[in-house]
């Protein structure tokens, strides 16, 4: 029982930078607190009430007031900049990161690797690689929290939120749901298993090979009839989806939006919300027809229709469906 850790394991690049600021603040605030407490104690003793001792009235001092307004302000601004810098990195996933789609629900975590592996309450990732979590919730708000990585991101119903990390140390770490989500909130926990790259490859090649997530998405794309409108030429009733992801899209109402994951997602669930310029709002909604997991597969598929970014070992680029027989790898 006398297991008493005082510092969480440090297993990601972010963890190092968060800890650095934290230690800086501990030192700074420890010093400030010590200074104030010492002053109070010294005054309390030195000027204690005793016979022959009289209080000396002092009105105040503008110089002092300005000093302790602007010096703290300056220090605070430095802390702000440092904190914001870390946050900026936390919120800006690097290009070419491996992607894991996540569906949170009361009270479990479901993960879909683009390679096709699915996991529940357990997430395997390799050391030394950027991993981007694309997350959504099936019901209430949850929060993806890995203390060893010092990252946390709420997972919302109805849209994607994103978190990323770069694990630095192999091991098994806690995964917690950090946003209160009902009865078994404290049971919505799991393990993040960080593995050496070789072991990770072994893990990937083991297990049931379902085909990649994009592959699954392709199947859904066809079975739901998306392909009847979205063809891979300019003849379809809907836009050609090749190369759409990540590009700006001109809308009917004149706005331009970037086609990110949330845009693809919304296009499928609420097509009328953003109508592509030059097309009629004829696309039916798939709200309630596709599950969150299927939606993730569709998004992964639409994304796979882009050529992979140069130099990045991304997901295998799938051929657009044609009349030719499937070439399942």
């Amino acid at each position, binding site marked *: 029982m006398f*297991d008493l*850790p*005082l*510092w*969480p394991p440090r297993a990601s690049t972010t963890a190092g930078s*968060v800890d650095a600021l*934290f230690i800086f*603040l501990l030192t700074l*605030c420890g010093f400030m*607190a010590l200074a*104030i*407490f010492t*002053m*109070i104690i010294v*005054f*309390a003793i030195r*000027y*204690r*009430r005793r016979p022959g*001792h*009289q*209080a*000396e*009235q*002092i009105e*105040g*001092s503008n110089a*002092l*007031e300005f000093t*302790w307004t602007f010096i*703290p302000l300056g220090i*605070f601004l430095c*802390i*702000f900049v440092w*904190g*914001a810098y*870390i*946050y*900026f990195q*936390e*919120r800006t996933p690097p290009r070419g990161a491996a992607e894991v789609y996540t569906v949170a629900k009361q009270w479990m975590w479901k993960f879909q690797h683009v390679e096709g592996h699915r996991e529940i309450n357990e997430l395997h990732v390799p050391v030394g690689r950027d991993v981007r979590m694309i997350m959504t919730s099936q*019901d*209430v*708000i949850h*929060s993806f929290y890995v*203390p060893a990585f010092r990252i*946390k991101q*709420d997972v*919302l*119903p*109805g849209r994607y939120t994103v978190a990323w990390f770069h694990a630095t140390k192999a091991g098994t770490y*806690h995964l*917690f749901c*950090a946003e*209160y*989500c*009902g009865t078994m*909130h*404290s*049971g919505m926990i799991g393990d993040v298993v960080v593995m050496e790259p070789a072991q990770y490859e072994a893990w990937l090649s083991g297990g049931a090979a379902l085909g990649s997530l994009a592959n699954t998405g392709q199947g859904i794309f066809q079975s739901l009839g998306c392909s009847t409108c979205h063809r891979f030429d300019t003849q379809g009733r809907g836009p050609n989806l090749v190369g759409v992801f990540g590009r700006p899209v001109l809308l009917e109402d004149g706005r331009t939006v970037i086609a990110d994951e949330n845009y693809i997602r919304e296009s499928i669930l609420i097509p009328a919300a953003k109508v592509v310029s030059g097309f009629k709002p004829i696309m039916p909604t798939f709200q309630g027809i596709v599950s969150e997991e299927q939606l993730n597969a569709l998004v992964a598929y639409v994304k796979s229709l882009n050529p992979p970014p140069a130099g990045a070992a991304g997901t295998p680029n799938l051929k657009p469906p044609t009349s030719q027989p499937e070439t399942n790898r």
Partner: protein
Amino acid sequence: MSMATLTAPSAERENYLNQEYGIRSWLLTTDHKRIALLYLLSITFFFFIGGFFALLIRLELLTPAGDLLQADTYNKMFTMHGQVMVFFFLIPAVPAVLGNFLIPIMIGAKDLAFPRINLLSWYLFIIGGLFMLYTILTGGVDTGWTFYTPLSTQFLDTHVVAAALAIFIAGFSSILTGLNFIVTVHRMRAPGMTWSRLPLFVWSNYATSIIQVLGTPVLAITLMLVALERIFKLGIFNPQMGGDPLLFQHLFWFYSHPAVYIMILPGMGVVSEVVTCFSRKRIFGYKFMALAVIAIAVLGFLVWAHHMFAAGISLYAAMIFSLLSYFVAVPSAIKVFNWTTTMYKGSISYMTPMLYAFGFIGLFTMGGLTGLFVAALGIDVHVTDTYFVVAHFHYIMVGGMVMAYLGGIHFWWPKISGRMYPEAWGKLAALIIFIGFNLTFFPQFVLGYLGMPRRYWQYSPEFQVLNVLSTAGATILAVGYLLPMVYLLWSMRYGKVANENPWNAAGLEWMTASPPPTFNFDQTPTVTWEAYNYDELKEVPVER
């Protein structure tokens, strides 16, 4: 039995307590002092209910497994602990009890501007309180005190609407009290009581009132939307119907961050009165102290989304809210520095209220400094929704506000009851509370940085030792809170009879009888002195 029969001082001078007897004379009173006592009784009642929930929470967390309570029961405990403590104790504590009692006297008025509305406030509070009790007794509510959607609107079938209604109604009590104070401070000051002569207690309650009047309606709207959404399935917060759950968080925190200042500003006012009195000093930097509370009230409205750094708001919004949060930290720092320098070259005695003031400054400083941690974006992502945040706001709200409230109760007890509390017991209780508090909440900072999420019914075994420490502290704290209950009640009959000004303190409230007559002063005073004119008051003899 009414309070009056308990407290009738032996020297039968007419005062607000003995002027009339009987339950009717209390329930229909418009005397701000009697209404303050009605509040005192009611919030003490709720404090012990909320405290009882807290104790159950701490007992459950003694072991990692969820064993003492069911998961749902545990969730109800922390939900109702939060709701009762925030809305039925902390928010009314200093304003509705001490503010009600003291503000008219401190500015030399006969009563508040709207005595009947003041009584109405109390009745609204009681009606709200009854709804809260109904909620508690009929099975409770488990939304978390924050009512986050869509959990609260679509996924729970507990008494969410009743709880929301309870808080909605109590909110109006808070609005009316705020309104009453604002008008009173503007219109009812005695001749010569200029703004620059107001005690800082009045300034801080004035700032608080502004927040109450401007902020609470937003809470009312938000809770109303939750109720409507539940009843009529409007879909405002339901993404499937095009709604947005984050909208709720914005609305909720728009009130609930400023509410933190409703809970702390009046406490700062108490500390300013106490520190000056027991240092025999004019407050250091009066003008800056007054400006600081107004600055906190105004800036406090601009930082709400710092509760949402991990919630999915935009990167740049988060940065702005972080920056503004650092701005609001500045006036808080100014206050701490000024209290400290007020003691410089003073003549300091360590009476119970002063011990509480020391406690306040220490714990508030800790709470404030850890505020710098949580306002730093990169760190907040890690510690938000963990015990770090729980510890942080308990340092402010319990370490700060409850300390100040108890300090204030002791300080003005002779004025309120006409009797002195037993000094030795007072000091002992203050010490126990200070120790118990730190033992309860300091380990939670460590737990939070280790990554233990809040609102967890069961937890990973490596967190146990720190949780055991915390629970041990909570039991000490409970003893510390029960003690004043006992000896203050005792003192109402057996305490030494207090004279008009037992501390030889500055301020109009010390220039009328203890307890004061119904209309506070025999004739309206004319003020010719600055606040905290301790140079003009004679020294108090050394204790003992």
